[in-house]
């Protein structure tokens, strides 16, 4: 908002002086311009590069530019590109990982931020809000995207108040515009013969003091305010935002999701043009020998089929799942995660949808009341996506035909300071990083129990003794052992799910006297698929009731056959306070938690560990989103209470 004190007026013919000021110190000015008849944000080398007389006409799925509308240079409300193109580039080198031919040793070189010095000219109120949201998402939490922060710190922001609006605009509803309030260095309001200019930061004040021109007259200030007010009136209040979060989360079953999916192309345009969408994926380019590997991060989208895929399937296989994920994240669970809506009402997703799906219509069609939930942010450990600690493989112990336990010796003690249930991101030259749970911590090493589910895990298993492996972590929440103090403990593991639970057994046995009865129910596909068979008897000797069952009997097996719930069917846990830790395939956890609840374990004491597609491991890449959670950061261990209706629900 233009304030009375110190408000200046810059005549139109002196706009070059503003550009000169912005360019000082070697800055490049970026602003709206027209190239090949298309609206872009590009370098503004001279005033002539600004789109004088150009205007946009927008409607869902349609955008047209036309010129000859006078002299104004900021009459294009917005174009397809947002400023994230510059603050959060579409592609960014994360680091380089090399393997030396001589001794097979590996090295990591995370990329250091090297931001260009830019001045953003013509940032709208909604876009300032978007930058503010990115500040929270990418630089406001425990973990910080250093590159983003450096780029933000290096950029000057010259805002422009909107004196026109487009048909897609709904900043008024989202509370982000059209008035510019905060986040800028300078703010302009364009009038016919010039610009009313005000400062929004100390840096802006200094620029303003050196800007030629004069103080704005009260008439000019009034004209500026009136123009912005008229814009607000023109936009109206197209989206009812009261209680929107709860109304949306109540409608996970709305038939409308399926209807919009009939039209939705899942083309990712809405997310790519959105100024706040921040999901990314990493890719690796290697030389033919796999010695030099450059890791790059690029914008990804929850609409892509591979976005939520894991080794066994896809958590959001259908278009409607993905549309629902996007909309509920943007307007609802974003609030849980970051304390703000993820939408700023710029309307790009409406205009640039190739088939004109209007998010405002969809929101209106998917309505009613509420359920709140707030989750405190837990979490220790520091890590950035490009930084890995090097460990050396000391031993590899086969567990089953396709699974082995690796002994990895780190040089950094931080890797050994984890909690039961935490995981590490594993990085090897040539492969994308992937998460593996720690199956035991020891004084100088940690154990990872790995199943060769794909090429990367197979390569990890093939690492020769003495070879090096990169690890980042430990990450995620652990099993809350303290919640089990003085209580009976039921541990239910399915298949490889025993690996992340073994540290729980270790912890309980280390302090056996402080816990009640301990039952370990372990189900596996066949007798040969059981992990840690040697230890299972040892645990029995140390006071753990160990029950095992297999889906399919095998040679020499005289034990139980059936599913793991058979072991719990006839039990009663209601009489004594009991805590349960469950890990296995999602369907197994669903069946198990349902039996445990029937048997008297309360939802708050029922803990499960979820699997999702993870790339960064610290809640920045967006792949592992589930409702309000980033599974990597907020989980993987959750109580059933936290998960609520999301647990085992298809397609979230």
């Amino acid at each position, binding site marked *: 908002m233009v304030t009375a004190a110190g408000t200046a007026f810059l005549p139109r013919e002196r706009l070059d002086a503003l550009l000169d000021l912005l360019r000082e110190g070697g800055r490049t000015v970026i602003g709206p311009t027209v190239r090949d008849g298309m609206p872009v944000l590009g370098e503004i080398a001279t005033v002539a590069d600004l789109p004088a007389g150009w205007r946009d006409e927008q409607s869902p799925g349609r955008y047209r530019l036309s010129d000859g509308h006078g002299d104004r240079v900021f009459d294009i409300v917005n174009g397809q590109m947002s400023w994230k193109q510059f603050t959060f580039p579409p592609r960014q080198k994360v680091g380089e990982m090399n393997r030396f031919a001589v001794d097979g040793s590996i090295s990591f070189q995370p990329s250091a931020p090297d931001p260009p010095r830019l001045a953003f000219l013509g940032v709208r109120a909604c876009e300032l809000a978007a930058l503010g949201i990115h500040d929270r998402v990418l630089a406001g939490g425990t973990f910080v995207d250093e590159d983003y922060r450096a780029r933000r710190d290096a950029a000057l922001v010259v805002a422009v108040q909107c004196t026109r609006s487009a048909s897609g605009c709904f900043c008024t509803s989202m509370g982000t515009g059209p008035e510019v309030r905060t986040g800028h260095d300078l703010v302009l309001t364009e009038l016919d013969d010039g610009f009313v200019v005000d400062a929004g930061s100390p840096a802006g004040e200094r620029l303003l003091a050196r800007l030629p021109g004069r103080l704005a007259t009260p008439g000019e200030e009034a004209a500026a305010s009136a123009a912005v007010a008229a814009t607000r009136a023109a936009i109206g209040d197209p989206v009812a935002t009261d209680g929107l979060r709860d109304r949306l989360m109540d409608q996970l079953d709305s038939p409308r999701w399926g209807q919009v999916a009939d039209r939705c192309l899942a083309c990712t345009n809405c997310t790519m043009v959105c100024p706040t969408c921040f999901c990314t994926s990493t890719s690796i380019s290697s030389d033919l020998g796999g010695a030099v590997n450059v890791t790059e991060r690029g914008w990804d989208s929850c609409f892509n089929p591979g976005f939520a895929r894991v080794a066994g399937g896809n958590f959001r296989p259908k278009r409607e799942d993905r549309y629902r994920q996007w909309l509920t994240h943007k307007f609802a669970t974003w609030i849980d995660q970051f304390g703000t809506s993820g939408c700023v009402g710029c309307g790009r997703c409406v205009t640039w949808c190739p088939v004109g799906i209007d998010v405002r219509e969809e929101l209106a069609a998917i309505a009613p009341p509420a359920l709140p939930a707030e989750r405190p942010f837990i979490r220790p450990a520091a890590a950035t996506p490009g930084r890995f600690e090097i460990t050396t493989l000391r031993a590899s112990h086969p567990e089953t035909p396709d699974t082995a336990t690796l002994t990895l010796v780190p040089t950094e003690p931080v890797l050994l300071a984890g909690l039961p249930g935490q995981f590490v991101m594993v990085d090897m030259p040539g492969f994308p990083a992937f998460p593996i749970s720690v199956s035991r911590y020891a004084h100088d090493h940690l154990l990872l129990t790995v199943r060769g589910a794909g090429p990367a895990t197979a390569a990890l298993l093939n690492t020769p003794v003495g070879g090096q492996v990169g690890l980042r972590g430990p990450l995620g929440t652990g099993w809350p052992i303290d919640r089990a103090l003085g209580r009976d403990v039921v541990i239910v593991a399915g298949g490889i799910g025993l690996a992340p639970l073994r540290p729980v057994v270790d912890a309980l046995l280390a302090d056996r006297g402080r816990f009640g009865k301990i039952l370990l129910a372990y189900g596996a596909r066949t007798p040969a698929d059981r992990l840690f068979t040697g230890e299972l008897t040892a645990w029995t000797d140390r006071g753990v009731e160990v029950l095992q069952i297999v889906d399919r009997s095998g040679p020499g097996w005289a034990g139980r*056959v059936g599913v793991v719930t058979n072991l719990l*069917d006839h039990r009663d846990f209601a009489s004594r306070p009991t805590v349960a830790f469950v890990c296995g395939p999602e369907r197994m956890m669903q069946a198990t938690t349902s039996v445990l609840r029937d048997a008297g374990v309360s939802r708050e004491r029922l803990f499960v560990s979820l699997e999702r597609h993870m790339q960064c491991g610290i809640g920045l890449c967006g792949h592992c989103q589930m409702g309000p959670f980033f599974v990597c950061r907020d989980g993987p261990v959750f109580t059933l209470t936290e998960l609520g209706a999301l647990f085992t629900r298809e397609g979230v």
Partner: protein
Amino acid sequence: MTAPGSLAARLGSTWFGSGLSIHARERLAALAELREVEPGAVLLREGADTERFGVLLRGLLALRVGVAGRGTATLMTVEPGDIFGWSAAVPPYRATSTVVALEASQVLLLESGALRDLLRDDEQLMLALYPRLLESVSRRLTATRTQLLDLYARDREYEPW
């Protein structure tokens, strides 16, 4: 009243029995006999008439079926508290699997003809017994389906290499 240590009391301490009325427990106990069986003992044969219905009190039983050319396979095991021979109460009264004791086990046995006669005579008993029976069968069905899902199987992903 049921005396502690009586068969009715033993029945009541099981999962299956705990869901029955006292009346039902006592009528069943009156027909039941307590048996210790050795590992390997066959309690029912697949395809034969279901000669008895039972409740496992201690030990472990296996349900097995014969598969042509592959010998027998254990479908699942029965835990203490659960029943076997449910087909004694459901036409055509033929055993759907062979029941073998895996460990030294203690079972409560009812002769199936007598059980059916009793159910015909006593509607109250029937009303108490059938829901519990169905619950057990339905659990078993659910477990079987879960097994069929092959939860731990490694889904083969698209892997060219």
